[in-house]
């Protein structure tokens, strides 16, 4: 085992938000028990929700929200230029998330429904994950993002290691916790095809998985649709379930 010491200089980190509910940033302020330990290693140079300062460059930029306007595109390019490492925080940033549901309808209709006659004041784009515009180094999934995963990624970056990317489905974590399968309790659950890393928190408390962490790599979507329809959903309902967080990944989405 090699000896590794804590970094001598503090890591400069910055937080940014795009189209989102800002829940992931708020979740970060909820770190409470860990926040003082965390501040040992970092200097927060930009965090709109907690401070006023601005910085020219950052070692790590944590970014929440999806890209949905031309201004977003300009800003994310600017941040990417200043950041050594760029981390997407939460579903909106990592997979497009709920925002991307709008992509399934004609963009002009969406604009009209939301802004009415003032729509010409608000240019809009299909909602996109950050990776659609810039290179994303790491992704922290979930709606809101998972705190343990955030700490995991943070610690790895602070030590100069690549973080572990969870890529098994939620079912794995349910089995490790010996949960009774929600399908056996008459529910339909997206656990079999959804990326784990949440410690199966929803199924453990009796709530079926809605798929907020996105799909596992190489998902067998047809088999999942069969499972959902075999357990009582119509094909249309089943597809809607899968689209809640995964609209950006859908072939019919307007990109």
């Amino acid at each position, binding site marked *: *085992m090699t*000896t*590794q*010491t*804590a970094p001598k200089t503090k890591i400069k980190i910055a937080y940014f938000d795009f189209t989102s509910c800002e829940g992931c940033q708020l979740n970060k302020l909820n770190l409470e028990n*860990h926040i003082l*330990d*965390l501040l*040992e*290693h970092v200097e927060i140079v930009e965090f709109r929700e907690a401070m006023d300062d601005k910085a020219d460059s950052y070692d790590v930029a944590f970014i929440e929200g999806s890209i949905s306007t031309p201004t977003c595109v300009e800003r994310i390019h600017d941040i990417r230029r200043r950041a050594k490492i760029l981390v997407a925080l939460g579903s909106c940033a990592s997979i497009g998330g709920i925002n991307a549901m709008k992509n399934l309808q004609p963009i002009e209709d969406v604009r009209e429904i939301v802004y009415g006659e003032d729509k010409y004041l608000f240019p809009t784009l299909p909602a996109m994950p950050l990776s659609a515009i810039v290179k994303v180094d790491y992704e922290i999934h979930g709606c809101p993002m998972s705190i343990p995963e955030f*700490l*995991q990624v943070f*610690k790895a970056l*602070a*030590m100069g290691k690549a973080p*572990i990317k969870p*890529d*098994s*489905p939620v*079912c*794995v974590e349910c*089995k*490790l*916790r*010996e*949960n*009774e*399968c929600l*399908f*056996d*309790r008459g529910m339909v659950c997206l*656990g*079999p*095809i959804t990326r784990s890393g949440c410690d199966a928190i929803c199924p453990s408390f009796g709530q079926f998985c809605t798929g907020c962490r996105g799909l*596992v*790599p*190489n*998902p*067998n979507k*047809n*088999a*999942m649709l*069969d*499972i959902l329809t*075999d*357990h009582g959903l119509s094909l249309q309902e089943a597809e809607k379930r899968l689209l809640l967080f995964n609209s950006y990944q859908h072939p019919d989405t307007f990109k």
Partner: protein
Amino acid sequence: MKRYNLLLQNIPDFVKHLQAQGEVLAPHTKGDNSFSFDKVTDANNVILDYNRTLQSIRKFFLPPTERLLNYSLTENTFTKVEIENNQRIFLGVHSYDMQAVLKLDFNFSDRTPEVNYLKRRENCTFIGVSFEPDDFHFSRSVGITVEATEGFDIFLNRHENGYEVQVLTERGEGIIKGFNALENAPELAETNRQFKNKIKFNHNRLPEVMEQSWKSPVWDEVAKRCVGCGTCNLVCPTCYCFNVVDNVDLSLKDGSRDRHWDGCMLNSFAAVAGGENFRETLASRQRHRIYRKFKYITDKTGDPWCVGCGRCAAYCTADISIVEIINQLSDEFEQNYLRKSAAPAEQII
């Protein structure tokens, strides 16, 4: 072997008698209609009539997550985690789960002994119980009857009013000593426990079937229905694969080396440094899973490494059945490799 009779109403007292001698682990209800092995706190909550538990008793010897080492990065030192091995009494274990433990004993003592597992296996007493096979059990097809007593210290065989208690070992005798509510053994009528779920061939022919099945279309057909969630691995009592990860705490000075269950059906199980994945497709992973049960270890030991508990099928959300897979492969084998005029494959049971 001594035999007694334990009436149903005396079971709570029997459990209390066991509790006086060590930690008792037994099936309890879990969720809406499932069962789970748990530490007994109230003797009245023990369930001896159950189809299967969500996890087998392997979880007590190979925990789902386990800390192996604590280390200090600044001191460059590590300490092993102490493994407890107190007296534990497992009550209400089905024959197939007992057989699974015996198989794990082989896996974990063959070549390099797995010390944590073997330490946890010490000081354990096993009290078996019979079960009524449901739609998923097929242990008879892999050579394990409901009443198989190997590995048990005491076996409880269900009859109308209670259980026939078979005391099988000295340890069993010691455990039962002092419990006075036992009666003389009843004359048990021949039990007629039928398995509805069956593998078509005798299990000793399956390695031969597997030998010819590497390129079978069955794997692709199964893969179309499979989402690769890994449930079949994670509920299997003879699956023992794990992954080891290092977790550093927020001080970045200390950390732990932990392991957790893994499964060969999962996407990155066979992924290696450099990004290569040796079993990228679900079909190749399904084949590997089945071969692990009926070929690879079987070639070495002569025994199937599946115990017929039916968990992988019972808990599969896509309703994939290991018995169906084996039977399809057997049909194919019969058509392609056995003479058409040959007598139909022998039926077991």
